[in-house]
């Protein structure tokens, strides 16, 4: 009585508290974005910044897919489709909006939307940023609507069949976007004036892709989106809705018997995931200034699924880490650095974890040592024989994927967050970490 009563009271603690609960994630996101954009980005340099932005976008995608594939236990293979819908919507709004408002498709952003070598002389706030943010949010909304439409078949289908339908959806989205008409070029303003507004969504570039988009996505926006989505989805995981998702994953029939509306839970999972994917799509398009549906195909969806699975189905920090790892890995293999410091670090972390649990697993420890030595020897041999490992990076990537599934089928962290696995927090969250509850 007392515990639940108190928590209910505190959750109704007035408007100020609610507002603060809603606002602090945004503040944290902006703060993280500012730190990354103004301090870490300039320090790391242009190339590293681009990789970091790509990492952040992939984190948003992976973390959002965790909601469907991890929490709700549905299997979606169409995440790139939602990304494409959001991305194209945002691109259309920003591109045609810029043309109509400023007669020009070049970015008119503030300091926040410029890379650090172009910051000088920019205002702190600009109309372009507002347009960009609104466009990304509308993109997220459109993707959410699509998520609702795709979520509906999940009422009838389960498992592999749902995976196939989402896959089909992603491919249809791609084909339809490739079938749109060519974009109205910035130097053909008269053509733009003749085209009525409702026809503009038909001019999204077609097979050539949607090009010449103003570049807005910087480390600030990417980091802010990443932080915000991570916080929102982390809160979701431990909310009533998140528990509904988890119950649907564990056993649909049991969940239904406990009064969970299974249908509604599944559709909601799709809608939440699609929204963030749409926003990530908007960020993606305005990073390089081009949206190309060809790149947002089945393979892209698979990449995101791989991130979720490697991270551990349902682990937010795991998915985020896997996203970062898989984005950096191909870049690292272009010019592989020495692996042994990372190997030592992993070894130290794993040893620490096992020491905390008073349970040493020698095969795992020797496995890490052997893997490190094998990789190091391979790198030395490659350097000695002047073999370019960049040619082999995708082969290595595929091999790692297979080995990971063979050796650690639960992904990096399983359903746990990495701090749970490290044993840093002694008190398990009840009801979610099934294993710790049984042990207790």
């Amino acid at each position, binding site marked *: 009585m007392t515990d639940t009563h108190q928590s209910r009271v505190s959750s109704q603690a007035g408007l100020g508290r609610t507002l603060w609960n809603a606002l602090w994630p945004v503040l944290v996101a902006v703060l993280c974005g500012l730190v990354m954009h103004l301090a870490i980005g300039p320090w790391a340099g242009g190339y590293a910044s681009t990789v970091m932005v790509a990492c952040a976008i992939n984190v948003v995608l992976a973390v959002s897919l965790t909601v469907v594939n991890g929490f709700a236990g549905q*299997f979606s293979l169409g995440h790139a489709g939602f990304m494409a819908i959001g991305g194209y919507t945002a691109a259309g709004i920003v591109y045609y909006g810029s043309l109509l408002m400023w007669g020009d498709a070049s970015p008119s952003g503030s300091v926040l939307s410029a890379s650090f070598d172009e910051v000088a002389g920019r205002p702190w706030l600009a109309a372009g940023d507002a347009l960009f943010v609104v466009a990304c949010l509308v993109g997220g909304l459109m993707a959410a609507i699509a998520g609702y439409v795709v979520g509906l*078949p999940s009422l*009838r*289908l389960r*498992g*592999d*069949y749902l*995976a*196939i*339908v989402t*896959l*089909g*959806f992603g*491919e*249809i989205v*791609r*084909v*339809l976007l*490739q*079938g749109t008409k060519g974009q109205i070029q910035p130097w053909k303003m008269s053509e733009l004036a003749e085209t009525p507004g409702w026809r503009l969504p038909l001019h999204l570039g077609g097979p050539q892709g949607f090009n010449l988009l103003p570049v807005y996505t910087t480390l600030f926006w990417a980091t802010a989106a990443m932080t915000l989505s991570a916080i929102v989805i982390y809160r979701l995981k431990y909310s009533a809705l998140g528990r509904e998702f988890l119950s649907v994953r564990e056993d649909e*029939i049991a969940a239904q018997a406990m009064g969970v509306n299974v249908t509604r839970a599944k559709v909601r999972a799709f809608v939440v995931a699609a929204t963030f994917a749409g926003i990530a799509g908007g960020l993606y398009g305005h990073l390089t200034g081009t949206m190309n549906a*060809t790149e947002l*195909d*089945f*393979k892209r969806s*698979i990449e995101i*699924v*791989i991130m979720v*699975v490697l991270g551990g*189905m349902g682990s937010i920090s795991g998915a985020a880490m896997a996203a970062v790892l898989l984005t950096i890995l191909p870049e690292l293999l272009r010019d592989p650095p020495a692996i042994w410091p990372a190997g030592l670090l992993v070894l130290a972390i794993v040893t620490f974890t096992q020491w905390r649990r008073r349970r040493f697993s020698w095969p795992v420890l020797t496995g890490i040592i052997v893997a490190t030595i094998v990789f190091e020897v391979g790198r030395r041999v490659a350097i000695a024989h002047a073999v370019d490992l960049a*040619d*082999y990076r*995708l*082969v290595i*990537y*595929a*091999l790692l*994927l*297979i080995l990971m*599934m*063979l050796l650690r*089928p639960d992904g990096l962290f399983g359903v746990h967050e990495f701090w749970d696995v490290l044993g840093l927090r002694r008190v398990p969250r009840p009801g979610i970490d099934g294993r710790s509850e049984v042990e207790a």
Partner: protein
Amino acid sequence: MDKFLQTLMDGFTVGSLYALIALGYTMVYGILQFINFAHGDVFALGVHLTIVFAAMLGIEGLATGGPASLPVVVGVLLLTMLACGCVGFLIERLAYRPLRSSPRLNVLITAIGVSLLLQNVGQLPFVFGPYRKATPNLLPDVTLATIGGEQQTQDDGTLEIVGGVKVTLVNVTVVLVALAMMLALQYVIHSTRFGLAMRAVSHDPRTAGLMGINVDLVISLTFMIGSMLAAGAGFLYTLKYTGNVAHPGEATWVLLGLKAFVAAVVGGIGNIRGAVLGGLLIGLTEFFGVGYLSSEYRDAYVFAILIVVLLVRPQGILGRPKIEKV
């Protein structure tokens, strides 16, 4: 009318290719209940091995050399099937068997890993290389019969048929070889002891094992047969599509594999006849869509059919509904 017949013939030819690939998907699903995403890449391997073996037997490229003699053509087909069968065996043995008891999602991800591995190894410069290759000139370009069309007298007095639907040797060969393979498979599954074992394992692996069936062997052989059918489809693909074929890393193969997989699902996955029916249906849908609606949305028709079929009849046209047990 001409257009209709031509579309029908092309759709039927390509549909039988899809059906051959779909058989591999459906056999694996029937036994192991997982989508073997690497199957489309085994098909691509079949295409490229056909080119390599044909070159080894002296038929290179489109331009050089005339059509090959029959033993050479059959030799290329058998070699390709043998090689792909071995690759299929290795894939199952090394990647899938250790995961037999783990969750299906893990096997699925492994299959994706194997698919990526095949694509990227195939692209390496000393394997097939990251460039397009010309298909070998294996069959003469002969028109066997012409349906419809008008006879016109040429300037030099000879008669020539203009228009009409040409039934070419290639189309007939593709359909006949595909049909022969399907009939052979049907025979193996329904009339041999091995087929009986396969059906038993598909029904319940545990009980089949208790009845003295070597489950591992049956699964290995199923993979080999599926891969050999994919190799056969790859061989027929090089006959049908003369010119340049895409290199192993291109999206073409993934998409072809996906369509064949869609065919298996539409027909009712796990069902052999369903796969054939689905393959033909998908081939015809694709070609009639391209011929009569618009060629831009070529891939969308296939996936639209998929979604419609799954929504109306989730188990596929010939599939049996699975009973949920609590």
